[in-house]
């Protein structure tokens, strides 16, 4: 039994390059997931039953089908209908679509938890619907859902490791190459595990801090 983590030192650069690609993919996917999540959450809380059902179906599908299947569907399927997207683009798209389903859940809870009295005050002051969403509903819902959104982001980071299955050399993909170069898979993958744990821990901390900062004026009992 041999265990020699220090021999990985020269490969740190590869790990960093992979980490950078992971970070980029996750950041882009998060932006997409947030935008999509807001739209879908608004559809799910809309008055129109058609909107609710469409949005509900989207969330249902993306929650009950494995991510890797979604990824393969897009990766192998999109070229068939003429959409030539590179592996990285496909990966980000898949992450954003899946992430959107989960963020819409979170934002929907935030919208539903809104004090109805506050909504009424906005309505009777003559504010048009778009302005109510833009200035009242979304700012409040996003403030209260920072922590759960942080969890979704953590999930996104962990899921991004699956992108290595379509030859993207993000963090996990890079690690696979290092493992096959060094013939030390245990050290490599143990280190990889710890790196992910560190990343997700940082994200959770950041989400907590952001939550405290955005909510420093908003107490629970404003009625």
């Amino acid at each position, binding site marked *: 039994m041999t265990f020699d983590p220090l021999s990985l030192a020269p490969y740190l650069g590869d790990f960093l390059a992979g980490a950078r690609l992971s970070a980029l993919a996750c950041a882009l996917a998060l932006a997409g997931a947030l935008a999509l999540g807001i739209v879908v959450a608004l559809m799910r809380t809309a008055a129109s039953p058609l909107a609710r059902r469409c949005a509900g179906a989207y969330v249902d599908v993306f929650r009950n089908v494995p991510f890797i299947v979604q990824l393969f569907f897009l990766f192998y399927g999109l070229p068939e209908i003429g959409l030539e997207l590179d592996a990285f683009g496909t990966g980000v798209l898949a992450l954003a679509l899946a992430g959107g389903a989960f963020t819409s859940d979170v934002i929907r809870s935030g919208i539903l938890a809104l004090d109805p*009295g506050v909504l009424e005050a906005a309505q009777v002051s003559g504010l048009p619907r778009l302005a109510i969403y833009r200035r009242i509903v979304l700012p409040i819902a996003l403030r209260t859902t920072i922590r759960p959104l942080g969890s979704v982001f953590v999930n996104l980071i962990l899921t991004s490791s699956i992108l290595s299955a379509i030859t993207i050399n993000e963090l996990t993909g890079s690690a696979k190459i290092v493992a096959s170069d060094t013939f030390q898979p245990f050290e490599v993958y143990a280190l990889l595990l710890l790196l992910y744990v560190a990343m997700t821990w940082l994200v959770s901390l950041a989400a907590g801090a952001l939550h405290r900062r955005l909510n420093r004026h908003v107490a629970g009992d404003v009625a």
Partner: protein
Amino acid sequence: MIEIDGVIKRYGANTVLDGVDLRIAPGEVVSILGASGSGKSTLIRCINGLERTDGGTIVVDGNRIDDPKGLQRARRCCGTVFQSFNLYPHLTALQNITLAPTEVLKTPRRQADDEARVLLAAVGLEERAGAYPAQLSGGQRQRVGICRALAMKPRYLLLDEVTSALDPEMTADVLAILARLAADGTTMLFVTHEIDFARQISSRIVFLDQGRLLADLPTGEFFAPDGGLAQPRIAQFLSKMKK
């Protein structure tokens, strides 16, 4: 003029408003009195469109509120102050007041801020313009609520039990402000339990009982033994409120 004709409102099997007729002309100060469950708050919530009526019509300055465009125009004529304040928790007192003028009336930011500060000064809160609702007391929040309603320069002010959630000391402050508004000629329609206050500042008293209008009289007549008090339900109610 607010014209309420034959308004009916039901919640399931329960008829909360049973054919109510009412007219409010500019300059009037009208109090709606009645026991809990008599439909008082529901009536106000029908006027500003928070509840849909099941029968009858409500017209505010010529705008029918059962028509979406009419409702929007009617809402601009009316300012509402709520029992539970309903301030926007993520905005400062000043921002609470300037939100509607800047978004709806398209008032320029600088002008809206100045006008808001004048309103806050009138209720003694100019120092607290930058405070968030969580940092204000109940009475202060309600005063901001009043300013917020006034910021749109409404023709009619609707007040729904605006002191019920306040302790006696804060209640007195808010009532003083309302009395001043009434004296300045603001048209007000309010639902209240404060009988003495209603008697002091109203020009007219309306009494609702189980969804029906039992009386609609000038204040003096309402409290006269041969006027409002002649009705047993009203006399019973008033004596209970006197404790």
